[in-house]
């Protein structure tokens, strides 16, 4: 083809392309669209199928709960209008608010709620405990149902409201699916509707305002009160690179950054266009988990040695850095700032003591064998805490075998009951959110039920018995008094070691108003100005 004809063709092509740009619709960010970078990718939309926090947060958008916690951590009615408890504390009768509808337009019925509770209780730790104390459910009419207990269980309302794993309500046609089948229909009755057709795992999840939602009249208070959606659309964006998310927030391409790295906080605070807010005043507890199946940690003295050799402030300094974002020292298993905070039994361990740790390890029969510590390579905060732990162990004379692995491999390896030198492990670091940790029953790492306990399998029937007694007590004041005994026992058998409590703030553009300090990121009450 002659050169001048090719040039003419190219010119024509360019002209068409630019003509296209004149007529093409511009991508305009609506003022009613809230764009948020979330801390993980939403891959699973069934809150009973996984314990992943991102799925629970998705649940808060699309589902509603029977009860919700207020800022004093008291369960308050949410979908429930009124409720009564029989004088013997064995029968709870709930009446739902009238006029509530599922996203498909059908009415919310008591039978739906019972089906949802049955599904939830098959997987949720608190739900399982509740069901073990139950005679059954009874649907009285379209809006009323009963929970009948056959033995005392004082945490019924707390279990239903649990901040990190509440009982989300869904239509019976969905809740009745077998528990081994993942729910793929996210129909709920919450303030937002999930747009499944726009969901792109690994990139984006979209929610639109549920116009049919009837919020409670009370003002929002933590997770309770009126859930008024003030934006038309919420877009969750998953950005694997935090630097990109920060730049996007600075440039105004996103409105809300759910979990900014803690070393970004100072920079963000200095930017007048941004606001940094701690929405969770309980924070996160970081913990060292010993494997109680194998020496030396099958001996409680070796686990006690961990209490002496670890330092919360050193760990938090490495993990967080900014002293305003962590507790220098928190003596309780049950989160400082919570109702269950207590220093009972903690005094001997307030000061790091390597000599005592060495002595206890020797008494436990430790003779310098290599101890396998799992160090994650792809979770910076866990990696930093593990580095401190390794240093502390070595200072206490422990022969440490560091195994650096990605988190996915650690989650499968830690589930193995093989001896440490044959593919098992001795120690790893993990963390858990405050609301769960604050309850000795909801905190799965505190459960010392041997084979039934979580990985690490601590075994202390006395501790389990004390927790059961605590859960059976319905009087909050009496329950509070029992916490000291539980903690004193925990410092003897040491299911895990608390190595610090820190706070993860969120960041958002200054034109966002109404961001709630609800413990978890929620998207109702927020408006763009």
């Amino acid at each position, binding site marked *: 083809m002659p050169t001048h004809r090719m040039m003419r063709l190219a010119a024509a092509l360019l002209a068409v*392309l630019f003509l296209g740009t004149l007529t093409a619709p511009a991508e305009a960010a609506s003022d009613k669209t809230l764009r948020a970078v979330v801390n993980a*990718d939403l*891959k699973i939309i069934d809150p009973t199928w*996984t*314990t992943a926090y991102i799925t629970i947060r998705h649940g808060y958008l699309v589902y509603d709960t029977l009860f919700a916690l207020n800022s004093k951590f008291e369960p308050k009615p949410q979908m429930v209008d009124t409720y009564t408890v029989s004088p013997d504390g064995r029968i709870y009768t709930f009446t739902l608010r009238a006029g509530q509808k599922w996203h498909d337009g059908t009415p919310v019925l008591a039978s739906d709620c019972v089906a949802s509770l049955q599904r939830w209780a098959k997987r949720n730790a608190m739900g399982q405990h509740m069901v073990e104390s139950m005679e059954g459910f009874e649907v009285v009419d379209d809006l009323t149902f009963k929970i009948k207990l056959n033995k005392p269980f004082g945490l019924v309302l707390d279990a239903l409201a649990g901040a990190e794993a509440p009982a989300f309500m869904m239509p019976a046609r969905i809740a009745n699916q077998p528990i081994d089948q993942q729910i793929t229909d996210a129909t709920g009755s919450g303030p937002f509707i999930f747009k499944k057709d726009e969901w792109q*795992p*690994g990139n984006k999840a979209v929610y639109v305002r549920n116009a049919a939602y009837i919020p409670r009249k009370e003002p929002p208070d933590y997770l309770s009160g009126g859930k008024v959606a003030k934006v038309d659309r919420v877009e969750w964006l998953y950005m694997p690179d935090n630097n990109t998310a920060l730049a996007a927030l*600075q440039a105004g391409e996103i409105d809300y950054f759910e979990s900014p790295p803690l070393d970004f906080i100072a920079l963000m605070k200095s930017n007048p266009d941004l606001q940094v807010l701690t929405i969770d005043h309980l924070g996160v507890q970081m913990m060292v988990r010993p494997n109680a199946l194998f020496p030396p940690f099958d001996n409680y003295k070796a686990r006690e040695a961990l209490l002496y050799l670890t330092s919360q402030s050193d760990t938090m300094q490495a993990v967080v850095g900014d002293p305003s974002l962590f507790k220098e020292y928190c003596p309780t298993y049950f989160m400082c700032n919570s109702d269950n905070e207590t220093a009972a039994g903690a005094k001997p361990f307030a000061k790091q003591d390597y000599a005592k740790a060495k002595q206890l390890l020797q008494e436990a029969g430790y003779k310098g064998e290599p101890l396998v510590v799992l160090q994650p390579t792809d979770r910076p905060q866990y990696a930093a805490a593990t580095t401190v732990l390794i240093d502390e162990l070595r200072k206490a004379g422990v022969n440490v075998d560091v195994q650096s692995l990605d988190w*996915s491999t650690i989650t499968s390896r830690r589930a193995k009951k093989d001896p440490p030198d044959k593919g098992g492990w001795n120690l790893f670091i993990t963390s858990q959110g405050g609301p769960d940790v604050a309850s000795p029953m909801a905190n799965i790492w505190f459960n010392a039920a041997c084979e039934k306990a979580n990985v690490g399998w601590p075994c202390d029937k006395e501790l389990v018995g004390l927790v059961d007694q605590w859960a059976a007590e319905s009087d909050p004041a009496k329950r509070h008094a029992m916490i000291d005994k539980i903690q004193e026992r925990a410092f003897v058998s040491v299911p895990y070691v608390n190595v610090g409590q820190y706070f993860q703030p969120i960041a958002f553009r200054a034109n966002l108003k109404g961001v709630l300090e609800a413990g978890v990121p929620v998207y109702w009450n927020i408006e763009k100005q």
Partner: protein
Amino acid sequence: MIRVILRKLGSTAVVVAVVAVIVFLLIHISPGDPAAIIAGDRATSADIEHIRQSLGLDQPLIVQFGLWVGRLMHGDLGVSLFSRMPVATLVAGRVEPTVSLAIATMLFAVSTALPLGILAAWQVGRWVDRAIMVLAIVAFSFPIFIIGYGLVWGFALKLRLLPVQGYTTLANGFVPYLQHLILPAVSLGLVFMALLTRMTRSTMIEVLGEDYIRTARAKGLGQLAILLRHALKNAAVPIVTTIGSGIALLIGGVVVTESVFSIPGIGRLTIDAVTQRDYPVIQGVILISSFAYVLVNFVIDLSYRLFDPRIQG
């Protein structure tokens, strides 16, 4: 020619089949348990075991392989262990951003590298040549993510000319589409541009020393005609080979670029699937990617015949 194409297609099928078997074995023998990841950090061992059973991950490896191959024979790549969405749907949603990025990158790299390489060869030994070579070395030496962050800082945060991140489909208009591609394409394309500039320069220098070029000059042909019509066409085969092998370079670079610029493409899908041990997605993506890669090389093989009719078979 048809026989050549059929033979090449046959060998392509063999390569893809070998890749399929290797990928399946590699990901299943590597440590990690998708059931534990699905269950989450607060799940009990019993929860994890329930999930493992319900997903069929407790089956022997040979059974899982047989099921996968059986589905593959029916054109079914399976469903994600996590989202339960078909792998084909997940991949289809990621093709446009990656292909757009790859095309934009190639356009940027080729359209800058060829003139620079030709110019450097023409001006060999002079300051222009040296300046171009310094530029090529600098572009080749910087990691993609450093270039990416630098471009974002300059063009998105300071000058506010281009967006920081994201991808917008062509259906939303050409300007936003292009705006979202410029920075990623430049940061990904610089390395490739440097490689191609050096290759074009050295090949052109070699060709420009040939007797027929001297003859063309003696006949009084213009410099532009000599460079483009005679020299470049004869230097094309190694340059096209470099472009083909550059696609492999792109596949590696796309992963980083898509992460830095938050582009929802195949690279990010692959990395996410690998870190989560989402076996069907890993298998599907690698199978499709290897097929695409073999196909590109196949097309490049065929293109040699266009540039040099002496190449047969």
